[in-house]
């Protein structure tokens, strides 16, 4: 099984430690993983802004970079959701279909494809899980509070097997953080308010470290936490799962 | 303009026919105590429940609950409390000062504490709304589990007017504070016999 590592553009530039953790984690799980260096972006920022047509070049490049792999794995629910859902604007060649079908968010890949939930990780902290919307409701990484389904959560399964980690319960289980891509800039007041409310929920429930499978949400929350000097750390779930293995 | 234009526009714009789903009632089947479920849901929606072993005791029961009611309309033969009599010919405006109405419910629905009241049961449509308080007499055996069964029960009725009533009138329009008693009846009591 050959896995192509997909690293979202902003993680590449601004949070390389998340990319490193993802790569190291997959390698430790004996995955044959390589990183096509000519990758750029999945095109989501353009699609979400209404410029889907202009994103076709980026989407085509994505397919080119990843078409030879059995699986494409990336530490981002929203990007993977974009590939699976919105690459319908491309002509559906066998390569496009293959890429769309085999793109996986990291946690889902580990649990569903590798069949592992105990990764031997250790992280002795009180952790709050932010269930990013695209991963949750788009990729069905877990059950959501609106639907009357049996409870399940890919990220919780992984975190509950990390030694010393105490997963704290939040008041609003899966409310959006308010990032929303360009929404964070064009509807700044609401975006900030939504982020502040999420952070307060974590603080109210004794969380020390906020984690999740989407660093865009985490980047937004971290920006607020740092500006307001709040006693919280933010880490991508790949970094937690990769710790002390 | 109007009918022809609308129908033409619909014909031109509607999608290819999508078949009508058939309602399978199996997913809704459950083993619950229908009577207890009905009673607790009537209370949940702000109504009162009284259980009577015999319908002949109804007058003393109602007088106990509504001692101050002076203008009373009884639509059931078993009660003699009525001070005003009505028929289909009664003008609705005459009922403005009615304190209490006693009507017969055809059946109750356990899942939501609702009772079906037909036009025949009230003679004048406005009665269950305009009366200050409302008492519904219901037979314990006349209960079903959910609305799908309810619609089967009324499927052969004479279609003029009828309604499901679930609890007294209410509103939460002022800062989400629930207030019992809005424009319709201030209280609702279901007397089960």
């Amino acid at each position, binding site marked *: 099984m050959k896995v192509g590592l997909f690293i979202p553009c902003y993680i*590449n530039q601004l949070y390389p430690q998340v990319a490193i953790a993802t790569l190291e984690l997959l390698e430790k799980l004996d995955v044959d993983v390589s990183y096509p260096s000519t990758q750029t972006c999945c095109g989501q920022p353009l699609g979400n802004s209404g410029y889907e047509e202009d994103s*076709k070049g980026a989407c085509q490049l994505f397919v080119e970079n990843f078409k030879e792999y059995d699986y494409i794995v990336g530490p981002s629910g929203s990007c993977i959701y974009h590939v699976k859902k919105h690459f319908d604007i491309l002509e559906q060649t066998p390569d496009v279909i293959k890429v769309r079908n085999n793109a996986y968010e990291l946690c889902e890949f580990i649990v569903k494809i590798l069949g592992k939930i105990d990764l031997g990780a250790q992280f002795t902290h009180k952790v709050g899980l932010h269930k990013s919307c695209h991963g949750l409701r788009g990729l069905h990484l877990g059950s959501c509070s609106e639907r009357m389904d049996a409870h399940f959560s890919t990220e919780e399964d992984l975190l509950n097997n990390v030694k010393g980690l105490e997963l704290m319960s939040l008041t609003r289980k899966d409310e959006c953080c308010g990032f929303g891509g360009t929404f964070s800039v064009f509807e700044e007041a609401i975006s900030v308010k939504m982020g502040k409310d999420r952070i307060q929920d974590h603080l109210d429930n004794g969380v020390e470290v906020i984690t999740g499978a989407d660093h865009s949400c985490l980047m937004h929350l971290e920006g607020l936490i740092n500006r307001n000097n709040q006693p919280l750390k933010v880490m991508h779930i790949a970094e937690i799962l990769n710790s002390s293995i | 303009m109007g009918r022809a234009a*609308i129908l033409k526009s*619909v014909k031109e714009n509607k999608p290819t026919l999508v078949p009508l789903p058939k309602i399978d009632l199996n997913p809704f089947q459950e083993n619950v105590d229908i009577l207890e479920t009905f009673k607790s849901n009537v209370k949940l929606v702000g109504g009162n429940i009284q259980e009577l072993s015999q319908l002949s005791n109804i007058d003393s029961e109602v007088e106990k609950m509504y001692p101050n009611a002076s203008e009373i309309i009884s639509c059931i033969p078993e009660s003699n409390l009525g001070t005003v009599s009505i028929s289909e010919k009664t003008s*609705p405006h005459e009922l403005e000062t009615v304190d209490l109405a006693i009507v017969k419910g055809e059946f109750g629905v356990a899942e939501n504490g609702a009772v079906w009241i037909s036009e025949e049961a009230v003679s004048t*449509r406005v009665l269950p709304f305009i009366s200050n308080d409302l008492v519904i007499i219901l037979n314990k055996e006349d209960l079903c589990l959910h609305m799908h069964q309810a619609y089967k029960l009324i499927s052969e009725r004479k279609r003029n007017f009828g309604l499901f009533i679930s609890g007294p009138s209410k509103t939460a329009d002022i800062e989400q504070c629930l207030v019992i*008693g809005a424009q319709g009846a201030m209280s609702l009591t279901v007397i089960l016999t």
Partner: protein
Amino acid sequence: MSHSEKATIFNKNEAKVNWHNKALWFVREKRDTAAHKVKGWEYLRELASGIKANVLSNLDEYLVEFEKNALKKNIKVHWASSAEEHNAIVHKILADKKAKKVVKSKSMLTEECHLNSYLEEKGIEIIDTDLGERIVQLAKEPPSHIVLPAIHKTKEEVDELFQEHLGTTPSNGNPEYLTNEARKHLRQKFIEADAAITGVNFAIAETGGFVVCTNEGNADMGAHLAPVHIACMGIEKIIPKEEHLGVFLRLLARSATGQPITTYSSHFNTAAPGTEMHVVIVDNGRTEQLSREDFRSSLHCIRCGACMNTCPIYRRSGGHSYDTTIPGPIGSILSPGKDLKKHSSLPFASTLCGSCSNVCPVKINIHEQLYKWRQLVTKDVKQPFIKKSILKIAGIVLSKPKLFSLAGKSARFMLKYAPRFMVYSNLNAWGNARELPEVKNQNFDEWYKVKRKNHG
């Protein structure tokens, strides 16, 4: 003003935002509790969605069937292509009856058609009898929520309003007192009314009858006291058979307020002897929405408001920020169909979190339609030059690896080394309330080349 501008103003009062947010979240929680009690809830939603999909695909036949059956029972049926026609038809019925005093129960359709102001100009008094609607009518405001019209008003504000218009004594916003005073005031209006106007929750093709659901009993107090009852409905309110009411009535109130059913679900099939019953069937842009393959399922809507209660943006910006008759998520996919330019900011007033689609009892894929409307907005509505240029350039850069690498390097260099005052200037909206990420010495490409160069 765009949604964003109005929302910014709304957010200046953080306490009010918290209060509004909490009030609506509470309704969402009540909905969850009620839905959990229903065995087969998700199947019920599936059925409702399937029934509505069938309705839209056979709408003309159902409308004709409805009319035929209604006429058989002596209900008069009128058809209006537009809001103007609707208003004229309603007015004609009233004028023919010399009706001067009218009571109206909740009807978003009549809001959409601006019926009240039309009739008032013609010298007809029209009183909204739903308590929330009466409050906003007295306040001369539009409703901010389709089910809870006055959710944006505190009880103290209502108290002042009633003191001024109803002559109540100051009560510090006592809800029982104020509701009771409203009851007395509205009762007078019901008694004196020459005509009653109601909405229609569901119209049944099979029987020619319709159902009106209320908690207050105001629709019925109007309809059964007045000699004329006019029921206004959008074409999409049709359902095929009476048995389908079982599905919809199980979903409606639970989705809207968390109640198992509204207090009154009144089934109208004929006019009471000596009275008249009219139904006005309205298009007003609905057949146009029907033509749009991507957006037609928005016509499934049964006006429950659940999407508004769950929407994190609606809760923090309020219904008035949308500047449209129906606000919130459903409004943001209905309104652009009517006026794309006016409502172009609405599809962007969302993070596309998808919560709305999950609470929708008729399974409208609201968040997906918001995404699709965005593509149409950028095509058909003139966009700010800078935004458009930046995004188009981004499209090019992202399709060329070398350009992307260069852009990434420059951006990181700027972020890392430019002085703070430059980075956090007024041009940087992100930086208003948030710190930018700390820039590391290498990006991942560079690290990978060094640490894993064997894989190239």
